[in-house]
């Protein structure tokens, strides 16, 4: 048995309700034989019980009772697939506006978005919203399945109409890779198996596009970053600073700066799980030993040049999920950025994004599921990069101090398309 390790691609489905996201993922998993026999049997049984035919593929991911009763996706389902070349973590996201927070949850860790659009209805407002949120969250690679092609008798013209709409969005939002594929998730055309119904289409199937995608290499423009999570006391004295590396890797002997204290020092040693290493690559949960005695702890950051900036004032893009609107003298909020939590105040709301025109309109508050720009003031200094430059040091969440619920996703700076 081949035990070779594989690279990992994280993808999220996006698109409007009822365009067929869950059905497409169900089809993808069934046709690549990722489902066990008993799981497939259970889906068949559940479909029969609800009188909706032999096999409702959406039940593969819509696993909650309420979802099956209503035939909708409420929250993200995570599914896993392995092909000879790749391992996939699939976040099947809900399409309803009211569950935008859950869609953002799924898309925030995605390297690629798999968009699903019903060919008959074309690009809806909600799909546009999802494209916009995914792009704000830094997704640049898109595979777009133009679904339900069987309902338009595989009309190339109908397909081309949607392609034109997507090309416009892709240009506006600055996608780096967009592959548009005519599919029928229900019947499996062009999902895993090339369709005989689309002789006019010469591109890849959905699976081929996912396997070939080069998404995942985040464009790094900044230095190494290690937000300190925890201080480890070493045997025989001394301490190391544990955290996950982002940006660029660190090496033993490298010059680094401890922030926000702004103390320059050198990496004396790198450990992982109690064993020493010469290098700490991006994504490694390492711990670093620094050459100089420093007073560092959770919430501080070890960084290599070019250094991040230290600030108490953030110009940020905010996706607001709270039930009550976000406003200047509103709820008491806490901000969590990397490993640091601090009280935060909204100094001003600069505007709200109009999803359809991608323009910024004046606003004094943000309602549920609106995206806007705001200036925030934190009680303690943060060590930040723009989100465009580092997904870890450029992201934060806002937490309601009373309920402890996460009420916003925040990104330092604003997207290039705004």
């Amino acid at each position, binding site marked *: 048995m081949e035990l070779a390790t594989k690279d990992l691609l994280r993808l999220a489905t996006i698109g409007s309700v009822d365009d067929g996201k869950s059905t497409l993922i169900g089809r993808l998993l069934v046709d690549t034989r990722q489902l066990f026999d008993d799981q497939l049997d259970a889906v068949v049984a559940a479909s029969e019980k609800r009188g909706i035919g032999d096999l409702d593929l959406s039940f593969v991911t819509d696993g909650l009772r309420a979802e099956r009763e209503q035939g909708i996706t409420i929250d993200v389902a995570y*599914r896993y697939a392995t092909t000879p070349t790749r391992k996939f973590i699939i976040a099947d996201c809900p399409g309803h506006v009211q569950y935008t927070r859950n869609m953002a949850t799924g898309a925030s860790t995605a390297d690629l978005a798999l968009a699903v659009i019903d060919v008959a209805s074309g690009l809806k407002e909600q799909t546009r919203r999802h494209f916009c949120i995914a792009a704000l969250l830094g997704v640049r690679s898109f595979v777009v399945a133009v679904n339900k092609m069987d309902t338009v008798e595989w009309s190339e013209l109908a397909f081309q109409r949607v392609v034109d709409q997507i090309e416009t969005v892709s240009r506006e939002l600055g996608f780096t890779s967009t592959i548009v594929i005519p599919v029928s998730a229900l019947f499996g055309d062009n999902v895993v198996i090339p369709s005989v119904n689309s002789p006019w289409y010469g591109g890849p199937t959905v699976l081929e596009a996912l396997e070939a995608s080069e998404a995942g290499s985040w464009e790094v423009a900044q230095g190494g970053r290690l937000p300190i999570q925890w201080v480890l006391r070493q045997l025989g004295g001394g301490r190391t600073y544990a955290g996950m590396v982002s940006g660029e890797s660190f090496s033993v002997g490298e010059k680094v700066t401890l922030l926000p204290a702004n103390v320059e020092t050198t990496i004396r040693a790198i450990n992982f799980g109690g064993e020493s290493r010469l290098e700490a690559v991006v994504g490694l949960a390492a711990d670093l030993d620094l050459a100089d005695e420093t007073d560092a702890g959770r919430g501080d950051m070890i960084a290599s040049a070019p250094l991040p900036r230290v600030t108490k004032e953030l110009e940020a893009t905010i996706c607001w999920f709270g039930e009550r609107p976000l406003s200047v003298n509103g709820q008491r909020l806490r901000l969590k950025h990397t490993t640091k939590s601090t009280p935060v105040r909204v100094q001003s709301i600069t505007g709200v994004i109009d999803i359809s025109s991608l323009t910024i309109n004046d606003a004094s508050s943000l309602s549920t599921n609106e995206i806007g720009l705001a200036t925030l003031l934190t009680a303690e200094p943060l060590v930040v990069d723009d989100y465009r430059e580092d997904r870890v040091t450029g992201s934060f969440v806002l937490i309601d101090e009373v309920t402890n619920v*996460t009420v916003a996703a925040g990104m330092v700076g604003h997207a290039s398309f705004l």
Partner: protein
Amino acid sequence: MTTTLHTPHATDHLDVLESHALFILREVVAECERPVLLFSGGKDSAVLLHLAAKAFAPQQLPFPVLHIDTGQNFTEVLEFRDRAAKAAGARLIVAKVQDSIDQGKVADPGPLGSRNRLQTVTLLDAITAHSFDAAFGGARRDEDKARAKERVLSFRDAFGQWDPRQQRPELWQLYQGKVNPGEHVRAFPLSDWTELDVWQYIGREKMDLPSIYFAHERDVVLRDGMWLAVGEFVEPRPGEDVVTQMVRFRTVGDANCTGAVVSAATTIETIIDEVAIANVSERGATRGDDKFSETAMEDRKREGYF
């Protein structure tokens, strides 16, 4: 400004999963006051304990481990539990379902009845008694369709309940485990691991496991399509033939609701071969507790189950 597209990343999938798990373990310990690690002695919780030791090396574990003892365990698993806790230098707390029965909090299902669902009461009582505000579990999203929906940090209200319709958004890796008194979070560092990942990792790390995971000769009876081990908790019923077979266990639960699979795999390498080509999921093949209804796991999770 320079743009480097090919900075070295941890691209080996086991390395990525491992580092992510270490990150989650440290984050929860830093954010919560009194964490605990739920330890059943099964392979997933063994991996979890192994990862916890790595996350805090060379220090001791900054939390105790808790076993909910149904009193219907495989002897080999209890031996492993004690051995593994000792090796990790962890303080082991055992909460017994029998105590919940004696206190009249749950009904006694009788010597051969399943105590699976009763564990929830014992677990929630232990969490309250010790004021734990975070509990690490070895649950994986690939195990079950309800688990597939759960956050890495999953909020539990003062009654220990999970509300799948009101989960907190969980953006990026900004896990936040802040709760009010009486509430807690469950944290699942193995969320994105599959059964195959777990076995590959066990092989790579050369980990110790209970012997019942490896093929061995055992007296078994076929019941409801599952091979059950004949012993203290399973007696053959009229009409059931006791046969001696080479079997192993794919999951470890109570002796009376965990089925064995026929297997000749006596090493981790041969187990990985079997897992890679299996037609039936591990819970489907071996767990009677999931067969009650379409949403058996969701229903139990809502009540506060693992």
